[in-house]
């Protein structure tokens, strides 16, 4: 549905996106991850026909985003990150206006349906300027859904929503994604895990990884880490755990807690658990630590930079493997 080949955009001398190539199929939810300034919004603006690329080509539904911009815009629904809306219009009037611009038949009925989807029916006559951030976000999404687009492009759709709304939004996006194509950008790992079939990680305008969220995590996790909390002396216990074959290292985190890391191929968790109980400790917590998005991201971008430097990669990776355990103190349990 979405085909992107070698897409590049320069703002003056600054290259915002650099030779992006990716596809998204019908019925797929593609996540777009990256830090601020990575080029996510630029890519979305090119795909929605707001601005042309410097070089490269992109098609949506077979239409070229530059040469057949109007056709593309007809089949795309877009929610920009800043959710720009007319503050002095009522919710209904605004949606009716956008529906008229899209020449939707039975515009009023369709606006009503869109409002129902985002649960804003009771605020239809309220002024947009008086809405909360989350409600504005929902008006923006209703606007993007008005014409039942084949492709939905959402820039940070759940930012500023309360947890209940976030859950509702994700449910909505998932149901839409079943028979349409959704491209969404986000910073939130759990969002990617819950929603996306595939993830693109983008940094400094380049794709640094592309995979399913599960694969990406598994690939990057490498060694397994487990956090343990016991009643008793954790220092003595962690010394014992370190003796078990397959445990690479242990890190003391406090009087009653420590962390151990195992070799990727070996699952020694049952051995560790047995040892703890047999040694007479009360086991309070035994929790595998998944690598967070931040860690995945940092690792990927560091790999990228090191490849560019053509530095001694082997040494770098050694340091890299050490990094999670030395930095474990700072990590908050989620």
């Amino acid at each position, binding site marked *: 549905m979405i085909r992107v080949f070698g897409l590049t955009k320069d703002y003056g001398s600054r290259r915002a996106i650099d030779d992006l190539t990716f596809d998204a199929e019908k019925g797929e939810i593609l996540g777009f991850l990256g830090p601020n300034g990575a080029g996510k919004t630029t890519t979305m603006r090119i795909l929605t026909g707001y601005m042309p690329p410097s070089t490269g080509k992109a098609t949506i539904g077979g239409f070229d985003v530059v040469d057949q911009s109007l056709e593309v815009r007809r089949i795309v629904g877009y929610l*920009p990150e800043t959710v720009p809306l007319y503050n002095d219009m009522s919710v209904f009037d605004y949606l009716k*206006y956008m529906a*008229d611009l899209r020449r939707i038949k039975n515009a009023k009925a369709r606006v009503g349906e869109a409002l129902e989807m985002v649960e804003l029916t009771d605020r239809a006559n309220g002024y947009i300027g008086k809405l909360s951030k989350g409600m504005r976000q929902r008006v923006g999404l209703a606007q993007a859904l008005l014409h039942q687009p084949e492709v939905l492009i959402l820039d940070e759709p759940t930012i500023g929503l309360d947890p209940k709304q976030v859950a509702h939004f994700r449910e909505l996006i998932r149901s839409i994604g079943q028979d349409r194509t959704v491209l969404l950008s986000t910073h939130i790992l759990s969002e990617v895990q819950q929603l996306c079939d595939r993830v693109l990680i983008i940094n400094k305008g380049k794709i640094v990884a592309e995979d399913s969220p599960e694969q990406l995590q598994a690939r990057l996790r490498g060694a397994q880490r487990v956090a343990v909390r016991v009643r008793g002396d954790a220092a003595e216990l962690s010394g014992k755990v370190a003796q078990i074959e397959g445990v690479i290292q242990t890190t003391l985190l406090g009087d009653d807690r420590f962390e151990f890391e195992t070799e990727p191929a070996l699952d020694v968790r049952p051995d560790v658990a047995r040892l703890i109980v047999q040694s007479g400790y009360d086991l309070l917590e035994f929790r595998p630590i998944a690598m967070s998005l931040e860690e995945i991201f940092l690792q990927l971008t560091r790999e990228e930079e090191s490849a560019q430097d053509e530095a001694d990669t082997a040494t770098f990776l050694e340091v890299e493997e050490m990094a999670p355990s030395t930095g474990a103190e700072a990590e908050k349990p989620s």
Partner: protein
Amino acid sequence: MRNVWVIAEREYKHYFISPVAYAVAFMILLIIGIIFYASIASLMVSGQGQAPGIDVVLAPLTTLLLFTTPGITMRTLSEEQRSGTLELLLTAPVRDWEVVVGKWLGAMLFILTLLAVTWFYPIVLHQIVRPGIDQGVLVSGYLGIVLFSSATVAIGVMTSSFFSNQIAAFFATLGILLALWMISYPAQMMGNTGGEVLRYLDMAEHFYSTFMRGIIDLKDIVYFVSVTAVALFLGSVTVETRRWR
């Protein structure tokens, strides 16, 4: 074309939500009212002198429009750029020129509404003076003002596309309009050819000597329509180049 109408309709309705429209209408009607009353009152008190013509309404109306049009058009595109709403407009299936022409049409409809209200004065005047006002001048004068407004509104919308700041758009529009209004002054000092060009560009030249005297000249109509078309074209180009930045 339908999009032009949809945009114009929203634009027109918007004028009545914002206080600017009422302020402009109040100012125009008040000042014309004062001038109108003064002209009639002096005639009634003295009982002699020439009966006032329709120009007691048309002349101040034109001058007032010159100064208020920048206020009416300043937000049309600059506000959309500042708030970012242009992004949703330009990612909807709407052509760039449809946005610009729609904005122009909306502002034009608002000015036509204002002009319709000012008809109150000629009607009153017609009742007072004998044998009534010159209806030829009334028709040509209002036609002239509509054409003049079409050009000034187009210039205002064009200038609004240059800026994302309304105040900047206001003063730039006012500057352009005043310049076009008095560009024939330096013509007196210049040679024949240069002077002719400046005189042709001057808006007042195409208005006071013809429309205000009851003369409808195709040359003047072509002038105002051309200014409108060129300004709307440049506005559309500006919106389009915005995409390339």
